[in-house]
């Protein structure tokens, strides 16, 4: 120590220690808790509340309007059948939207997988279970390709899947030669593919194995998201990828696993699709990608990632199903069903934005 004079006075500064003596808050806002504000807080704490309330109100409203015809177990199970495909594809879409991505190719993956399953079993004469397994592998491969585009080439998910949507759909048309595989052929050669369409009677309700498969899938993914490290990492990656990376999460690996899993779920959707329509058509399920986004959004998932729940998507799909079914039973034109779904989407996102403002 040469040229510096020592400083003997104590360097501990007291200037901000006076803050310790002040009250325990920096500023105090006396806000009267209005009912609106309380509702907002409730919806913010329980994002599932809004779609649940809409679902209950819709069921209540339609039962008043239509009566027993709507509430009959058969009709309710019909609604469940009608939302099964969207529900399954919605599971895949939820996983991806939780990571702040979006997948426009889910519908195309599903159709491609159904065609692969059908042609393997019918044209090549493979065992049905093997055809099914091959179809699921194709789904996984398609998801893997999406994942590569997004994690390695850093293409935004919207663009990557917009491209792969067209590519997968074109491959599907080429591979199927744009021909439909007839229902009779499937039921005589590979009835396993139609198993998801078989029904069991349950107090007058007709549940399909496909619907049960969908519910099982929801439970499985719910468990994975909420009770495993992987699930926490999916949320963290979608919430703030940089923070997740610094916490030691390999975000690219998580993203990859999510896209591959989504591809597999879409392939399961293909199986459900075959059961639902009986035949295998390269033109079927064309609207599944946008419908699945609808279900996820109405279910309260944030498109910015990291927020939302898997069962929200189930409720979102049911809301759409109940509105379509109820309006149809009430004799309303299909056109107005579409109109209503459109309004629901806008309302869902509007409410989401409103909840986020000022309660964080």
């Amino acid at each position, binding site marked *: 120590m*040469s*040229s*510096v004079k020592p400083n003997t006075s104590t360097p501990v500064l007291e200037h901000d220690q006076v803050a310790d003596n002040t009250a325990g808050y*920096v500023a105090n806002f006396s806000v009267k808790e209005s009912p609106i504000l309380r509702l907002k807080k409730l919806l913010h704490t329980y994002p599932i509340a809004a779609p649940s309330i809409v679902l209950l109100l819709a069921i209540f409203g339609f039962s008043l309007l239509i009566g027993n015809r709507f509430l009959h177990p058969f009709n309710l199970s019909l609604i469940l059948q009608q939302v099964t495909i969207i529900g399954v594809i919605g599971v895949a879409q939820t996983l991806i939207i939780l990571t702040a991505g979006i997948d426009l190719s889910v519908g195309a993956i599903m159709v491609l997988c159904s065609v692969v399953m059908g042609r393997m079993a019918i044209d090549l004469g493979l065992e049905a279970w093997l055809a099914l397994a091959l179809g699921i592998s194709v789904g996984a491969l398609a998801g893997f390709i999406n994942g590569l585009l997004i994690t390695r080439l850093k293409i935004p998910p919207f663009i990557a899947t917009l491209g792969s949507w067209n590519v997968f759909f074109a491959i599907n048309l080429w591979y199927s030669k744009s021909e439909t595989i007839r229902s009779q052929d499937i039921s005589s050669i590979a009835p396993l593919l139609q198993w998801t369409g078989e029904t069991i009677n349950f107090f007058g309700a007709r549940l399909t194995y496909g619907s049960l498969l969908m519910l099982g899938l929801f439970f499985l993914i719910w468990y994975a998201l909420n009770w495993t490290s992987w699930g*926490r990492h999916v*949320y963290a990656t979608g919430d703030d990828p940089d923070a997740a990376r610094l916490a030691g999460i390999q975000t690219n690996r998580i993203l990859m696993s999510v896209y591959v899993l989504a591809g597999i779920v879409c392939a399961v959707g293909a199986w459900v699709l075959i059961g639902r329509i009986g035949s295998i058509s390269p033109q079927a399920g064309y609207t599944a990608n946008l419908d699945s986004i609808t279900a996820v959004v109405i279910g309260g998932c944030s498109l910015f990632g990291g927020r939302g729940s898997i069962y929200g998507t189930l409720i979102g799909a049911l809301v759409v199903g109940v509105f379509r079914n109820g309006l149809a039973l009430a004799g309303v034109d299909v056109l107005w069903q579409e109109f209503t779904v459109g309004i629901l989407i806008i309302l869902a996102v509007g409410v989401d934005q409103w909840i986020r403002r000022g309660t964080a």
Partner: protein
Amino acid sequence: MSIDYQQTPVLKASGLVKRYGSVTAIDNADFELYPGEILAVIGDNGAGKSSLIKALSGALVPDEGEVWLDGQKVVLNTPMEARELGIETVYQNLAVSPALNIADNLYLGREIRKPGFLGKYLRMLDKKAMEHNAKAKMTELGLLTIQNMSQAVESLSGGQRQGVAVARSALFGSKVVIMDEPTAALGVKESRRVLNLIKEVRDRGLPIVLISHNMPHVFEVADRIHIHRLGKCAGIVTPQSHSMSDAVAIMTGAMEIEAA
């Protein structure tokens, strides 16, 4: 608090060099951290202190030089490797995931699984254990105001969030905790809490590297101050031996001191 500067440094670096094209961010820098101390690292913008810290936390691999942890030569290629060796880093802004709750954040990337079948085959998380440990750690560090471990981090104030990040480093850091500007985004009162927290962690035996722009904070908590200038250590002072203006003078080159 007396620290024995004769013993082996916990973390030591010698002759570190990092070049970015024609810019030399770290120019033959040395660094030593002793057990039980708070070492502040100060320096002007662009002095290369964040590059130095990145080299010590594994976020950057130096072109030349050696890093020693507890007398053992180590190579830190990624933050994960540094973390596995017991070097925890608290980052300024990117500390936590806002939508996850406190317990999830504390254990993010290092979750505890349930014992037995559930954990081994179903890979089920032991949420109870994590919440329990999280609460114990927060209480130990005096963060009693946060009671509910299943509360989302976004509902906490800035200081409380920083508290969560510090608690995480204290929970897992076995050798060294590096804190990058922990008080930069906080108000006066919140800064105080975090500073007390830092001292608390030090008193529990973990040495701390504190990077800060805030001279009063540095002079209050640091045992020694490493002044970085032009990519290397311009000198090491203590709050007792030098005043704040001396430190600023050394930092800006207005005053010279023999390298320690």
